[in-house]
Each structure stands twice: as C-alpha cells, then as structure tokens.
C-alpha cells in the first residue's frame, strides 16, 4: 500500500466553478426541463393548465420526498400521507387558533412529521418488505381514524376550512400563478435535497443497507441510524408539501389528507420513473398526472374511477415490463445523448488519495483479547470456551475442519454474534479494553472482516463497493473515491472498477471482499477464506497482499483451508475442532501436534505415524 501522507494544496483539488458547471449539458438540460414547468403554464395562462402544473409540482415533490425512504433506503412506505396530513393539519390549526403564518406553521408541521417519522421508523425498520408496508398503512389508518374521532380539534369528517386571508403572508392568492411559484420552489427543494443525499455518504450508505445489511454493518454503517435519517428528512419534506397543498385547497378532511390511495400513487410515480433515482419521481409524475387530469377533463364525471384504473393498470404493466422504471431502463442511454451535447463528456478529475490513518503502538502488545467465548445454537455448541489473545502486527492463521466453529468465532470477534458467555475486548490506543455493542461499532473500533460467503452490493460498481468501506474514515465523497481507487489498485481490481459488482466472477468477488474491508482502514483484519476459489496466481497475489498489509502495521487473522498458503504466511496458528481451541503455536509445531493430525486425518493416521 502506498502511503501518501502529504495532501496536495486545497486549491488544486477544487471542483469546476459554478459558471463552468452551467455549461455542462447535464446541468443545463436539467435546468431547462425544470424551467418548462413554469414556462408552459405562464405562456398558456389558462387556469386549468396552471392547476395541472401545480398538481404536477406537488405530486412530483411528494414522490421525490417519498423516494428518499422508498427508493434510496428501499423501505416501501405505503402510508406516507400521514406526514402530508400532519403538515397540513398543523399549519391550518396554527393559523386558526394562533394566527401563525403558514410559512412558520409548515416548519412546525415538518418538525412534528420528522418526529413521527422517527417514531414509526424506529420500531418498524426491522420488518421485512411487505410487512413494513403493512405497518405504515396501519399507522396511516390509525391517524386517520383518530383525526375523525377527535373532531373537536380537526373538524372530523366534516372537514376544516382554512381562514381565507389573502396575500403572501397567508399563502392564499387570487392569482393562481403565485401558487405555482411556491409549488415549484418546493419541488426544487425536494429535488435538491434528494440530489445532495444521492451524492453524499448518506446516499451511498442507504444503498448499501438496502442491498446488503451485513456487509454494510461490517463497513461500519449503523443501519438503523441511516434509515432513520432518511425517514426524518423524507417526512419533513412531505409535511412541507402537505402544508402548502392544504393552503392551495383551503379545505382539509381526513379522507384526503390521510388517503391510502394517494399514498400508493406517490409511490407509484417513483416506480414508473425509476426507484432510487433523482429524476425518476419527477419523470413518473410528469408522465402520469397530466394523463389522468386530461382524462378527467375530457370525460368529466362519467370517467369516475378511470384515472385510478389507468394508474393501477400502468403500475402492473410497469412491474412486468420495466421494473427498473424509465430512468433505470433508459437513463444510461439518454445520459450518453446528453453528454454528446456541447460541453459534455468531461471526465472527473482524479484526486490524490487522502492520508491513511496511522496505526500506532508497539508490535507484540495485546490488541484484542477474547475470553472464554461460548456460543450455542440450540443443542450445538459452536464455540466452546475459546480464549485467544491477538498480538499487534502478527498474522494469525485459524485452521480446522469444516463445521469446527471458525466462522462462529469470527462472528463473535467482529460483533456479528454475541457470545452466550465470555467477552471480546478491543484494546484501544490508551491501553483500555472496550466492547462495542453492535457490529458497526466493532468496525468503527478498527475491526475489519470479510465474509466467507461473499456479500457484494450487487448493483453498485466495484469502486462504489469499496467506497462504502472507505466512507468510514473519509466522509467526503471525493476523498472516499480517491481512497477506494488506491485500495482497488492494491488489490488488483482497478481494471474492473466500473463494472457492476454482481457480475464479477468468484475470484474477483473474494478480492472485492478484501478491498471493501481494507478500505475501512482497520487495525485488525479478519479474513474468512479469502483464498478459496482463487487461481494459483491469485493465491500468490493474495499471500503477497496480506504480507504488505501487515507491513503497514495491520494485525491479520485469517481462516484458511489452503494449508500451504496459510502455513507460509502465519506467525502463529490456532486450530479449532468441534468448537474447541485444540492447539496454538508456531506453524511448524502445530502441524506435528497429535490432536491436530487426529482432527484432520483421524486417530488411525495419527497412530500410524507413531505420534
């Protein structure tokens, strides 16, 4: 690993300026497309067209906000109108009772919605797919029924009329264009937030958690915390839009403010446009909403139910034909066309990798102490009273027959399993032992682990996979990218760095495991059978790599079945059989240990050797 401790002067690393950004076709195309949402209704002047565009902006904003939870975090909320309703009712009630301007009321509503979002998310994020959706529906129904029940406060089913005070201060206008300006502003806000999240550590973390929980944990991601951030942001934005929409309609009733059908619609727009993309929700809304509004305009009341029927049918057809949505399916191609426009196709500057965090402490000191680890699964004792002290800077090989409990031991060292009895303590720089409570805590304490069964984030590129690890020490995207690139070179993945990780062969995936873990810049590296499935040449390369890693002060523990490699590599070998640590010592001694030979080759063989 090449360490470049000196970082170049900041001025060289600055991105292109704002003006030169505008000449990028991706930027100006997006701005032109967005501006059309204002220009078309301005030119037409028809109140109906203005109404359609206000509706488009509102639903696109709602869908964009939903996408932060539903798309980025992959948590399919079907009760998102609960936040919209909270925003609307809070604002309306604050005007009625306290004469508070809706501009402030909507902020109060947003804060309240964020708190409710956290309260829903915290218990429900552990639920799998459809059950999370059902729970969000249940919350929506509960709030709706309560808002009907407490009619003294909310006006109940009869509804609540917003006091009609005209002007900007009260967000109620005669000229409908003013509504469009606000709706457009809210849409821009939602898109900007969505874009910033997508291109930040939070966005990468959300994708990682959505794709693979355990691998994200191993990269030090606090799964619940990132999802809670997403739902709080999404709920607050949804409430802002709900508050505005209530002012636009000047009438609130539980059936529309907490509507299940509308909750489904805003999710649907995202799916049609492309889940988890920045532009998808807007695109889906722009395509579907005018269609439904026009159908309603042309066919009038006879079309009762038509738009819902069209929505439902489109939804089924999209799931069957374009599950990636429009952006997911055509996005890359359109992106290339746009890049072909004047000013396009620029390549991002490659930054110098930030400095590695230096590993301090003298070699040979204890760095991790495992005491009396016992873990049982039902009647099976997977690890039976294993104690082992890891010394700084060593390479420890762990061998043992299949099913001996090696991986279970690893899972306890890295916090993925809690031992039934016994402790794991990590010795910090101050010499004090600590035991984090969660797997991501272990990763933050400097324990990096790979998985025997590889856990790539399949839809991310190889480089992005490594970045998920690099974010642990480098919160800025560009720093993480540069650090990931450095790791990719070291591990030998730089030639495939832009390939989707899911398409790599097994050897590449094993190296990706190592790369992602290495990118977290661990003090202790736990490698679980990284040489399995590697070619002879790759094995040699991996052995070399592990030596290099150790030279940088990293302590390495490797579970391995490749005897030749592990014996030549390790300073010390520990042998686990049937959950017990049966031998421990320098490789030459361990291979001659009678119990080890028995464990591997049987008692008869050991007898025949005269041991």
């Amino acid at each position, binding site marked *: 690993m090449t360490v470049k401790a000196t970082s170049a002067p900041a001025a060289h690393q600055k991105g292109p300026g704002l003006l030169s950004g505008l000449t990028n076709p991706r930027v100006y195309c997006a701005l032109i497309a967005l501006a059309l949402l204002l220009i078309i209704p301005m030119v037409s002047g028809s109140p109906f067209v203005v109404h359609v565009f206000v509706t488009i902006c509102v639903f696109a904003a709602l869908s964009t906000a939903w996408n932060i939870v539903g798309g980025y975090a992959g948590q399919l909320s079907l009760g998102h109108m609960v936040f919209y309703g909270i925003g609307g009712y809070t604002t309306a009630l604050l005007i009625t009772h306290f004469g508070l301007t809706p501009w402030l009321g909507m902020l109060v509503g947003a804060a309240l919605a964020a708190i409710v979002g956290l309260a829903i998310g915290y218990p429900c994020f552990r639920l799998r797919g459809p059950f999370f959706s*059902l729970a969000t529906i249940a919350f929506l129904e509960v709030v709706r029924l309560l808002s009907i029940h407490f009619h003294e406060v909310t006006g109940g089913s009869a509804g609540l009329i917003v006091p009609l005070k005209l002007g900007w201060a009260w967000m109620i206008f005669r000229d409908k264009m003013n509504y469009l300006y606000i709706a457009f502003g809210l849409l821009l806000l939602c898109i900007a937030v969505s874009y910033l999240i997508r291109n930040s550590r939070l966005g990468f973390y959300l994708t990682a958690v959505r794709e693979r929980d355990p691998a994200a944990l191993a990269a030090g991601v606090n799964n619940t915390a990132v999802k809670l951030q997403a739902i709080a942001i999404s709920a607050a934005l949804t409430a802002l839009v709900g508050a505005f929409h209530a002012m636009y309609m000047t009438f609130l009733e539980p059936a529309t403010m907490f509507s299940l059908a509308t909750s489904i619609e805003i999710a649907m727009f995202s799916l049609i446009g492309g889940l988890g993309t920045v532009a998808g929700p807007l695109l889906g809304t722009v395509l579907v909403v005018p269609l439904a509004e026009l159908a309603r305009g042309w066919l009038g009341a006879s*079309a009762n139910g038509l738009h819902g029927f069209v929505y439902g049918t489109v939804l089924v057809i999209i799931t069957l034909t374009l599950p990636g949505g429009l952006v997911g399916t055509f996005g890359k191609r359109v992106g290339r066309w746009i890049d072909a426009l004047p000013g396009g196709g620029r390549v991002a500057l490659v930054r110098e990798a930030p400095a590695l965090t230096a590993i301090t402490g003298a070699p040979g000191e204890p760095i991790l102490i495992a005491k009396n680890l016992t873990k049982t699964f039902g009647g099976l004792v997977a690890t039976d009273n294993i104690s082992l002290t890891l010394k700084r800077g060593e390479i420890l090989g762990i061998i043992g027959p299949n099913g001996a409990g090696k991986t279970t031991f690893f899972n306890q060292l890295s916090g993925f399993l809690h031992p039934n009895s016994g402790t794991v303590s990590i010795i910090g720089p101050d010499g004090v032992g600590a035991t984090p409570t969660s797997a991501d805590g272990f990763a933050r304490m400097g324990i990096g682990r790979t998985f025997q069964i590889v856990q790539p984030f399949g839809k991310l590129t190889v480089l992005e996979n490594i970045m998920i690890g690099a974010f642990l020490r480098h919160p800025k995207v560009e720093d993480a990218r540069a650090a990931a690139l450095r790791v990719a070179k070291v591990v030998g993945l730089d030639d495939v760095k832009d390939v989707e990780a899911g398409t790599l062969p097994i050897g590449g995936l094993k190296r990706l495991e190592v790369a992602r873990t290495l990118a977290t810049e661990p003090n202790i590296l736990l490698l679980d059978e990284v040489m399995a499935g590697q070619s002879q040449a790759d094995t040699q390369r991996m052995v070399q790599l592990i030596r290099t890693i150790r030279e940088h002060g990293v302590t390495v523990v490797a579970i391995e079945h490749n005897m030749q490699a592990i014996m030549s590599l390790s300073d010390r070998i520990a042998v686990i059989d049937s959950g017990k640590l049966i031998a421990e010592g320098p490789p030459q001694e361990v291979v001659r240990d009678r119990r080890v030979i028995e464990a591997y080759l049987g008692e008869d063989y050991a007898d025949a050797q005269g041991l």
Partner: protein
Amino acid sequence: MDVFIQLLINGILLGSMYAIISVGLTLIFGIVRVVNFAHGEFLMVGMYGAYLLAAKFGLHPYVSAIPIVLLLFAFGALVQRFIIQPLLSAEEHIQIFATVGLSTALMNLALMIFGADLYSVPPSAVQHSINIGGFTLVIGQIVMFVCALALVAGLHLFMQSTPLGRAIRATAQNRNAALLMGVRVDRIYVIAFGLGAACVGLASALVMPLYPVTPTIGTYFVLTAFVVVVLGGMRSMYGAFFGAMIIGIVDSLSGYYIAPDLKEVVYFVIFILILIFKPTGLFGLGRGTE
C-alpha cells in the same frame, strides 16, 4: 354480564367471516410467499358476482356460492399465472407494487362499472336472528361460523391426506427441494393462489346477504384480514382461524366499551404491536416475517 356474553358471541360470529377471508390470505402467503394486497378486491369481485347472479337470475347468494367459488379460483389462478409468476424472482418491492396495482385497478374498474352506489341482494331469511337462551344470533352469521369451521377442517384434511396436499406442503416448506423431488412447483403455486382466491369467493357469497357491496369494501375487509394473518403468525391456517376469532371479539368489545369509531384503532394498534414485538404471531404458530 349478559351484555358481555352477547358481545362475545357477536365477536365470534364476526370473527368467522374474517377467518374465511384470512385463511385464503394465509394460503397465498404461506405457499407462494407473496403478500396479496389485492385480496380485498377479490372479495369485492366475488360480491359483485353474487349480486349480479341475484339480480339477473334471482339466485340466492348461498346458491351462487358454487359458481362464485369456481370463478374466483379461476381468477386467482390467472392472476398467479400472468402477474405473480413472472415476478417470483423479482425483487420484493416489485411484487408489492404488482399486487397493489392490481388492487387499485380492480377497485377503480368496479367504480367505473357500478359507480359508488351501494348494492345489496333482496332480503332473505338469513338476515333474521334467532334467540337461543336469551342471546340473539343472526342466522347468516351462524352459517358463516359453520362454514369457517368446515373450511379449516376441509383444508386440513386436504393438506394432510391427499398427494396434492402433500405436494403443496412440501412446496411451502422448501421450494427448491420440492422442485428436485419432481413437484411441479409452478403448477402448485397456481393451484395455491386459486385456492386462496376461492376461499374469498366463499366468503363473498356468505357476506353478500349481510353487507351491501361497494367498490371500496375490499379495503375495509382486507386491512382487518392482514391484522388477523399477522396475529395468527403469517403462515398458519389454524393461527389465522384463532386470530380471526380474537379480532372479531376485540372488534365487538371495543366497539361497545371504547367507542364504535375507534374499534379499528384498537386492532391496528394490536397489529403494530404484534408485528414489532412478536412477529411469529400470538401463538408462535408461524415463522414470522423472517
């Protein structure tokens, strides 16, 4: 005390309706492993079917139960074959969207055809109530209770003692192993989805004399059915049966003792609590949300 016992009886009778709907939902979830968000709309389709047969041919819904059950079986099988089957290996959210889309489309299709009006079948004797030991019981609800028991018993026998039932159970437990043993898994799924829909068909014929049909009636019943299924442990038919009884009783008691418009709040809160704290269901009969 008499009021309390009357409420319990009402709850159990109401629960038997939820039981029939929920057993169908459980079959589909337990075997095909798809949460059918359109389940309530299947009920609505069955109810409109029963209404049409009554209006055009004067058939009592109990008589039209047979064609309705067959119709719903076919409908469920078609949905499985042409919508769910292609999505079996797709990501979970796509499956959710597919059944949610189907639900939206069916509900609005009914709105287009029938409008938002309430339709009911001509009154018949099953709406009358009888008096047993001082307690009133609606005949139609007694019929439902008997049918719910018969349905669970019948399905139990079918699952335990026929070759097809065994193949279905094998598929539910391990799809790949069943495939390797020569079970035609795709066909089993079609049958299972059809059976689940057929249960709803039975429910719709039994419900029709007591409730008028509207395009949104499915949403009303299906949310309750989901509560029942989660309470019963997701994949256990027997759990669903007892879960339905409990929800029926909760419905009846909270409607009287708390407030009629808050009874749904009570069981939605139970639903959320069970999902969060005891995902294997109240009796631990299911395998939970995995």
